[in-house]
């Protein structure tokens, strides 16, 4: 029976009309906008159209509140005095102990022929991300940490010009004392950057090489204070934040990742937008504290769903428990669009 099912998947899988659906992602919970948790009034018989709208709001409210608890009350398990951090990814370890490189090369092969994303150079590249950071200020009197969620959108045209919009939500404090102590803006903001052709060469004017060795050299051209393998890992995250990759380019990136020393396969998971994925990580103390850097990839076509950083053995002077996620980014959309 499994053979029959697999055969059907091979025949029909590529035709899935929802294969590239990005909007299926549930927006990650935000700490702001905690709203009344009116239950969907399902037992009362409202007119149908109203009920639908009510459940959307109700369901969203429930999710927001469920997630909002994580930081508005510092999380049910966060000890007093600790900053609230998101729950760790739930990862199911693999049954077979295949090396990460082997798995990544296999995913790269699939990515190369996936046909995702559609489109081609010459169109505008569009990226939408949700980012979450733990920001901390440390002085002799202690550490104040804030949660900083933001949405990042970028349009990059074929001639290199473009714009980005960063909508930062107000930082979230655990206490009024922390807010008063914080040296920085405590309001939300929206920043729009525009640039002309040739003004942001730092973010690569040309397309990335599709050969893995050439791409590795190309990524290392960027100035960096980091050592390997974190240097290449960070260059890849920069690339992903700024360019929409063609299938062949994404395959090359995956092949570069496959050859990074220390890369491990952690298992299957769901990213913070609820999408199924595979987690690959490496560990480094190159940024000062022992940190696990994790990429989450789409299982079928190797799309980059997101990446995150987790402190593993020491928090230094940060007021977070161990282990703790200290940042994550998720790609909600990465596609070519008409200008």
């Amino acid at each position, binding site marked *: *029976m499994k053979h029959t099912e697999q*055969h059907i998947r091979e*025949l029909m899988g590529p035709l899935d009309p929802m294969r590239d659906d990005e909007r299926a992602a549930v927006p990650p919970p935000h700490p702001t906008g905690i709203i009344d948790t009116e239950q969907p009034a399902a037992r009362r018989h409202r007119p149908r159209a109203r009920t*639908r709208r009510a*459940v959307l709001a109700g369901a969203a409210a429930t999710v927001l509140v469920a997630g909002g608890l994580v930081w508005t009350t510092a999380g049910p398990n966060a000890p007093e005095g600790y900053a609230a951090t998101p729950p760790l990814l739930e990862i199911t370890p693999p049954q077979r102990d295949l090396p990460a490189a082997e798995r990544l090369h296999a995913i790269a092969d699939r990515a190369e022929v996936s046909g995702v994303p559609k489109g081609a150079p010459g169109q505008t590249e569009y990226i939408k991300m949700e980012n979450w950071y733990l920001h901390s200020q440390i002085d002799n009197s202690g550490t104040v940490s804030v949660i900083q969620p933001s949405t990042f959108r970028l349009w990059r045209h074929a001639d290199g010009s473009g714009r980005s919009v960063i909508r930062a939500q107000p930082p979230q404090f655990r206490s009024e004392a922390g807010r008063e102590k914080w040296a920085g803006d405590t309001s939300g903001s929206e920043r729009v950057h525009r640039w002309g052709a040739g003004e942001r060469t730092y973010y690569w004017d040309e397309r990335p090489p599709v050969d893995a060795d050439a791409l590795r050299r190309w990524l290392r051209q960027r100035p960096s204070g980091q050592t390997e393998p974190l240097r290449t890992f960070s260059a890849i995250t920069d690339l992903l934040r700024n360019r929409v990759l063609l299938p062949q380019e994404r395959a090359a990136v995956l092949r570069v990742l496959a050859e990074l020393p220390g890369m491990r396969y952690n298992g299957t998971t769901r990213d913070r937008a609820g999408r199924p994925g595979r987690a690959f990580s490496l560990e480094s103390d190159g940024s000062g504290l022992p940190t696990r850097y994790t990429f989450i990839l789409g299982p079928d076509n190797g799309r980059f769903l997101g990446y995150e950083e987790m402190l593993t053995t020491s928090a230094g002077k940060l007021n977070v428990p161990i282990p703790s996620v200290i940042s994550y980014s998720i790609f909600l959309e990465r596609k070519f669009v008409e200008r």
Partner: protein
Amino acid sequence: MGDGQTRFGHIYRRHYGDIRRFVGRRVAEGDVDDVTAEVFVVVWRRLSESPAGDRLLPWLYGIARRVLSNEFRRVRRAHALAEHVAAQPAEPAGTDHAAAVADRLAMAAAFDRLREDDREVLRLVAWENLTSAEVATVLGCARTTAAMRINRARRRLLDALRRGASRELRGGSAVAAAEGAKR
């Protein structure tokens, strides 16, 4: 926050995308969000019946199917698959691009020629990635019945592909690929 809300929040967050994709494969784009919301209305009503673990998602798909069967008179159905495939924007050209498009179109046309109950079984296996046991849960039938329906749907798909190929394809590349995968 009550246990019910907590559980509903967990289900919603974890499976919203699965349900939206399920709905999107069956109804027109403009109705997907509304129907997805309707599914979660029913999930909320029937939360106390929700199973745990691996049985949850097939249970949700079962609810989604019932909502869709109620809604089909009101909402617009999804385009024919061949129409959807044909409407896809051109991919970066490759040497086998034209042949690959022809194969996909032939497969989609074969799918469109099947009866709805066969198409539904194929969707559940290929796109919802369900096993025969899970298909049985969604369709509310015995495992052996589900297994039989899956086998039958695959056979009919291949038959439809052959019939289409004899009319339309030069060289029958889609059939050859399908038969090759079967071996």
